[in-house]
C-alpha cells in the first residue's frame, strides 16, 4: 500500500470523517427537539383560525358571515384556512406532545409555509370584509392573529434550523 505523507493522511482522515458524517445524516432521522419551541403560540393561532371559521358558520350576524353572504366564493378560503389549522393542530399534537417515536416530518419541515399561508389567508378575509362593509375596528382581532402567525413562522424557522445545524 502506498505510504501517505502526513498532510495527505490528514486529508484522507478528514474525507473519511466527512463521508461517515454524511452517511449518518442520511441514515438517521433529524434530531428532535425535547419540546417544540413556540408550541403555545402555534396552538393559539390554530385555535383562533378554527374559532373564526366556526363563528362564521354558526353566527349569521358575524362579520365573516355577512361578507360570505355577499361573496360565497369566500367559503373556499375559509375551508383552506380550516385545513391549514387542522394540519397545524396535528403538527403540534404529533411533533410536540407525543413521544419521539411518532413524528410528522412534512408538517415540521414546511411549518413556516403553513403559518405564513394562514397569515395571508386571514388578511385576504379581512380585505374582502373591508371591501364589502368598509373599515370596522373588529378587523383588528383578525390582524393581530395574522401578525402572530407570520411572526411565529419566521421565529420557528430560524429556531428550527439553528437547532438542527
Amino acid at each position: 500500500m502506498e505510504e501517505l505523507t502526513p498532510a495527505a493522511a490528514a486529508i484522507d482522515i478528514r474525507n473519511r470523517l466527512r463521508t461517515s458524517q454524511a452517511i449518518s445524516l442520511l441514515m438517521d432521522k433529524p434530531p428532535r427537539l425535547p419540546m417544540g419551541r413556540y408550541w403555545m403560540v402555534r396552538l393559539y393561532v390554530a385555535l383562533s383560525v378554527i374559532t373564526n371559521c366556526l363563528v362564521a358558520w354558526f353566527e349569521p350576524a358575524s362579520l365573516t358571515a355577512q361578507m360570505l353572504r355577499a361573496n360565497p366564493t369566500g367559503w373556499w378560503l375559509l375551508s383552506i384556512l380550516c385545513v391549514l389549522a387542522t394540519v397545524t393542530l396535528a403538527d403540534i399534537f404529533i411533533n410536540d406532545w407525543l413521544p419521539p417515536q411518532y413524528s410528522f416530518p412534512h408538517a415540521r419541515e414546511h411549518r413556516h409555509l403553513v403559518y405564513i399561508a394562514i397569515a395571508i389567508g386571514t388578511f385576504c378575509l379581512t380585505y374582502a370584509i373591508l371591501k364589502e362593509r368598509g373599515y370596522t375596528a373588529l378587523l383588528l382581532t383578525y390582524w393581530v392573529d395574522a401578525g402572530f402567525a407570520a411572526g411565529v413562522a419566521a421565529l420557528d424557522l430560524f429556531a428550527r434550523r439553528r437547532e438542527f445545524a
Partner: protein
Amino acid sequence: MTTKFLRACLQALFWIVVTTNFALAATAASLAPSTSMPLDQALLSFVICTFSGVAALLRRIDKELKTNPGPLPRPALFCAMHLFGSWLAGGLAFVAGQQQHFDVWAEIGLMIVASYIGAAWVEAFAEKLSPSTPREEMP
C-alpha cells in the same frame, strides 16, 4: 463592486416601484374620476403583498439554511430583494384589479400570485448578478 452594482440596481428598482405606482394611480384617478382608490384597501393590499413576499423570502431562507447553516449572507439585501419585487408586482396587480373592476377574490388571487412571482423573479435576477458569497465548507 458587485455589491455596489446590486445596491444601485435595488435603488433603481425601488424608485421604479414608487414612480410606477404613483403614475398608474394618477392615471387611474385622472382617466376615471368615478373610480375611487380607497386608502384602506390600498394599505391592506400593501400588507398582503408584503406577506406574500415574506412567504417567498422564508422559503428561500429555509433553502439557504438547509444547505449552508450559519449566518445569512447580506441579510438586508436578501430581504430587500424579495420585498421590492413583491411590492412592484403586487402594486401593479392592485392597480390593474381596481381599474378593471375585478371580483374581490380575483383581485386578491392576482395580488398574491403577482407579488410572490415578483419576489421570486427579482431574487433570481439578483442571484444571477451577484451569487451568494461562498462560505466555508461543512467539516
